[in-house]
């Protein structure tokens, strides 16, 4: 079965209502502005980045820390580590709760990798965001509210997929992440109108599946 959703597992969610200023500073928050932190780990990194962006749309929170761990979930430092830690900060713990709720909803119901071959050993992330929040828009250098295709796959598949995506629709590359990355995937952020982003994501996923089916074409 191809393109089966590979649902991310949330491994831990915690909040710190009144964080120590030193901790705040260490994780990129501003003690003048933030008092509370929300933290979440998960076994898939890119869905978390999407979820963090989602949080900024639902609550008055800033994404202060978001990092993937070396070599991904397979090499995790512990059962709660997964492959990513995302941290949001706010002036008020209630905002943190709203933000975390939005993240959990996104991870449980929306953003996920898909299996690109029958056993799911090739994973593809062809996610389309219809309207960027202020986290990813800043990361991608795009205006808040833009549509964006967030595309991730293993190095070979990602490269062939990106070419297909760019040719399939009127989209431009906001950022391309060539391998190796922390998790050894490759990624690209494409922008354009929402239908164009969708067409690009579909072409990307289709190409990734095709590469998996026929890795050697010569």
């Amino acid at each position: 079965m191809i393109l089966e959703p590979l649902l991310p597992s949330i491994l831990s969610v915690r909040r710190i209502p009144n964080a120590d200023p030193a901790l705040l500073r260490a994780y990129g928050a501003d003690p003048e502005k933030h008092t509370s932190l929300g933290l979440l780990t998960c076994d898939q990194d890119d869905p978390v980045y999407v979820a963090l962006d989602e949080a900024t749309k639902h609550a008055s929170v800033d994404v202060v820390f978001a990092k993937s761990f070396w070599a991904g979930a397979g090499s995790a430092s512990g059962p709660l580590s997964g492959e990513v830690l995302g941290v949001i900060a706010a002036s008020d713990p209630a905002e943190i709760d709203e933000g975390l709720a939005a993240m959990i909803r996104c991870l449980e119901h929306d953003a996920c990798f898909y299996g690109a071959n029958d056993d799911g050993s090739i994973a593809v992330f062809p996610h389309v965001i219809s309207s960027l929040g202020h986290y990813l828009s800043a990361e991608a250098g795009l205006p808040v509210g833009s549509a964006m295709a967030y595309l991730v796959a293993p190095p070979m598949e990602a490269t062939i997929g990106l070419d297909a995506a760019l040719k399939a629709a009127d989209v431009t590359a906001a950022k391309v992440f060539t391998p190796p990355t922390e998790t050894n995937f490759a990624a690209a952020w494409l922008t354009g109108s929402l239908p164009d982003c969708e067409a690009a994501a579909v072409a990307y996923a289709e190409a990734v599946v095709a590469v998996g089916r026929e890795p050697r074409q010569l």
Partner: protein
Amino acid sequence: MSLSNTRTLMAELRQRMGEDDPMPSRREPQRIPDPPVRVYPKPRRPSRFAKEAAAHTTALVGIGRVGTRYATSVVLQFQAELAVAHSAVATVLPDEWAAENGLLSLNSRVEDHRQFLLRPDLGRRLDEDSLSRLREQATKGVDIQPILADGLSAVACMGSGVALLEHLTAECEQRGWTVGTPMCARFARVWLEDEIGQEVGAKVAVILLGERPGLGTGDGLSAYMVYKPEVGKTDSDRNMISNIHQRGIPPPEAAHRLALMAGAMLEQVTSGVTLDLGPLTTELGDAAGTGLREPQVREPLVFVGEEGEGR
């Protein structure tokens, strides 16, 4: 905020690529309420239409709207205008006010303020005590008998009432007429001047009383004048000047006009619809018969903070 379309896109692609099994359906997500979005007040631009309309009418037009309702400033101005009108009506002339101002104090047959509003008939006649006081103390056989009264606004009576009475007395004396004892009637309706005038044997009676307040106004006086006053006279026997207050017809001007009107009555020995005020049109303005009344000028009543003067 809805979920992204990615799952649907992948389901369609999967079907197109030959996968027959349906995509596992997703769990129904719990609703996340819309995020609270910071609210910014709308800037209010003064309306050109309002400015243009103000040259022609005091009606509150061009005031804009919030949804289908009024802006807050409009509500406050309106409520202030209403409050001014209501409190003018509700104010009762104090018992001792007439005496303190050197006026003969009279009372109609009305006993309290509510009865005053509900029983106009009682406001048209003097009570027993007042009648005997009038008979004992007032000068008889005068040319003109002015009567100050509360009417529907004691506020107006206490405001420019005494000034109007004094100016009118001076205007009349200047013309060589005998002017009746200065007096003030409480809980009085217009027709009370008939009984008073009849008792003192005046040729002309004029009652100066607070008029029914309009929005934002409560200090206007009206004057109703009748020739050969006696119980039984009706509205068609009277002439009147309304809108007497600082923003309307100021008391000295009103007194002058009233004296002209009284002069016409003494000369033509009649009043009301049969009185010819034609020759006095220029001096009398509206009272000469057009019946038109210039609109009240609306003034902003509500100020917050430093601009307002404490009371």
